[in-house]
């Protein structure tokens, strides 16, 4: 058996373990350790690596941004910022047809600018917006669909935990990836609002009417949003401007949101404990996957499979765009059953070298940025595609009187806009890259 055979055989083994509900990080660790045993003929090498690899991964400076962003998101939920964002969006857009749902999406986008996680964004905004949507007569279908979709803006709009992982995997500049994510993130929010506008016209009974807010109230509502703006400018602006490292920016963001929560009275001993435990859950889960993927990918690299596959695909004269479409379809299918982080960690080390070997008429760096954003979007679609879409579960569990099947139906128009957006961004890389070209 050649090394390539071993690597190819490892895929079905890994998938079998994963589909038997073995935790994904654990499955990757086991397959990676087993695989390197078969390549080296002994455990000596992998065991020697493990002496330093665990600490090396857990204490990595570039990965330390992840728990900091997660804690920042937790503090942001405590600081009442989700309420003030939604209030502001609602007073400005609430009177339009479907306006309260649009406001929820807009507030998700705003919250996404200070939170790097989709589930946290969906959960936080769901708490604030669901009761309001119900009060104004929005159907459970539309309300849960809009919020589940809006939650994905948490990751699409920087800062974003998934982009940090992608940057590390492909050795790209995090700041440039954040810049590149910005326009597609705004387009996502606009797309969702258009979907709502069409939805309420096709199904007139699904949304009620909210009275128009006077301008005095509108401007007053903006004042309460300033802390969000301040944190966003400090964090993302600091990273864009090269003033802080991303880790420093995340620490400052966590400090800022923590301070705001403290001032607003949202942060006390009990809520601090809850925030820490939630951060511990998410961080521990993410790091086990990152660590497992590190071991598994080291094994794949040892087997030379990614390089061989890249050379093979590069020499076959395939149409790059067809390969791209095939890869994106694969992501969409996998996204129906798998979480976004595991997908990125499993697939990028294999797909990235293959895709880089194809010619899309972009420089290597521009290709990496563009591919990263597209992949980010398609894996995020996985969060809202049935049957396994975490955002759907999170939002649905909050809306007690809405059955899951209604949420599945409600999210459909949003998935459609996602697919349209992916198609547009794939066809026109310039949309993603224009901000990077202007700024750097």
């Amino acid at each position, binding site marked *: 058996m050649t090394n390539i055979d071993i690597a190819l055989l490892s895929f079905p083994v890994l998938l079998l373990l994963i589909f038997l*509900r073995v935790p994904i990080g654990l499955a990757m660790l086991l397959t990676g350790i087993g695989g390197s045993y078969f390549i080296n003929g002994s455990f000596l090498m992998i065991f020697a690596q493990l002496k330093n690899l665990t600490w090396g991964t857990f204490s990595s400076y570039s990965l330390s941004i992840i728990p900091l962003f997660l804690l920042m998101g937790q503090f942001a939920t405590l600081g009442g910022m989700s309420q003030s964002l939604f209030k502001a969006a609602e007073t400005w857009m609430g009177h339009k047809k479907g306006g309260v749902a649009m406001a929820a999406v807009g507030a998700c986008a705003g919250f996404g600018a200070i939170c790097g996680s989709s589930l946290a964004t969906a959960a936080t905004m769901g708490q604030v917006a669901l009761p309001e949507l119900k009060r104004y007569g929005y159907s459970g279908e539309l309300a849960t669909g809009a919020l589940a979709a809006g939650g994905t803006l948490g990751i699409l709009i920087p800062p974003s935990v998934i982009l940090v992982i992608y940057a590390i995997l492909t050795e790209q500049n995090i700041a440039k990836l954040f810049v590149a994510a910005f326009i597609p993130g705004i387009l996502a929010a606009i797309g969702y609002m258009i979907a709502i506008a069409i939805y309420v016209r096709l199904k007139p009974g699904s949304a009620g009417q909210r009275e128009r807010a006077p301008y005095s109230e509108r401007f007053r509502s903006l004042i309460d949003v300033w802390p969000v703006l301040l944190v966003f400018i400090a964090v993302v602006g600091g990273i864009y401007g090269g003033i802080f490292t991303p880790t420093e920016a995340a620490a400052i963001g966590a400090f800022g949101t923590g301070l705001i929560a403290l001032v607003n009275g949202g942060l006390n001993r009990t809520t601090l404990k809850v925030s820490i435990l939630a951060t511990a859950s998410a961080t521990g889960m993410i790091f086990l996957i990152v660590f497992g993927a590190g071991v598994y990918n080291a094994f794949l690299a040892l087997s030379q499979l990614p390089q061989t596959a890249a050379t093979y695909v590069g020499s076959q004269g395939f149409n790059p765009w067809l390969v791209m479409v095939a890869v994106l379809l694969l992501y969409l299918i996998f996204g129906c059953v798998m979480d976004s982080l595991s997908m990125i960690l499993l697939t990028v080390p294999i797909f990235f070298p293959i895709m880089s070997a194809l010619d899309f008429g972009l420089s290597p760096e521009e290709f990496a940025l563009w591919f990263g954003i597209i992949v980010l979007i398609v894996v995020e679609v996985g969060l809202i595609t049935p049957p396994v879409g975490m955002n759907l579960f999170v939002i649905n569990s909050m809306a007690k009187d809405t059955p899951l099947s209604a949420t599945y139906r409600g999210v459909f128009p949003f998935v459609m806009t996602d697919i349209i957006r992916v198609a547009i961004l794939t066809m026109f890389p310039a949309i993603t890259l224009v901000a990077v070209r202007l700024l750097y």
Partner: protein
Amino acid sequence: MFDRIDRLMRSLAALLAILGGLALIAVILATVMSVSGRALLWAGLGPIRGDFELVELGTGFAVFAFLPWVQINRQHASVEILTMHLGSAANRVIDVISDLLMLAIALLLTWKHWAGTLDKFAYGETTFIIQYPIWWAYASGLVGAVGFVLVSIWCVILSVRALMNGESQTHGETAH
């Protein structure tokens, strides 16, 4: 007796997670101080020397300390699409196997991390700037690693017990 150990394990995991969280908060404060110092160079202040080494120390300790909490609450990401169609007995068997595998990995990681700590101690390696001995940092990780092993053993006991009694286990809620 059983319930007492269960409570003890859950408190241990929670305590370690909180300690890890406090380490993260220390990292945040140190970084903010360092960045402020850098911004106030003109006022005679300066950044904390080797601040990134403190960040690495703090997060390394924290991540190790978080592992027991994730395990005891069964919050590791997994795919349930196929197994949810299997019967509850089959699922309990899977629980036992998967907890045993997790225990094996917890033991392996702790054993190797211990060996790594001894190496760093023997060579007297220090970090570049602050020059604290690296084995301190490694040893701080051992705290969480040992907790991870203990909790993993307990999880095996819990899932074996559930298999024998035919009762379902309490699963933690989804991580946000």
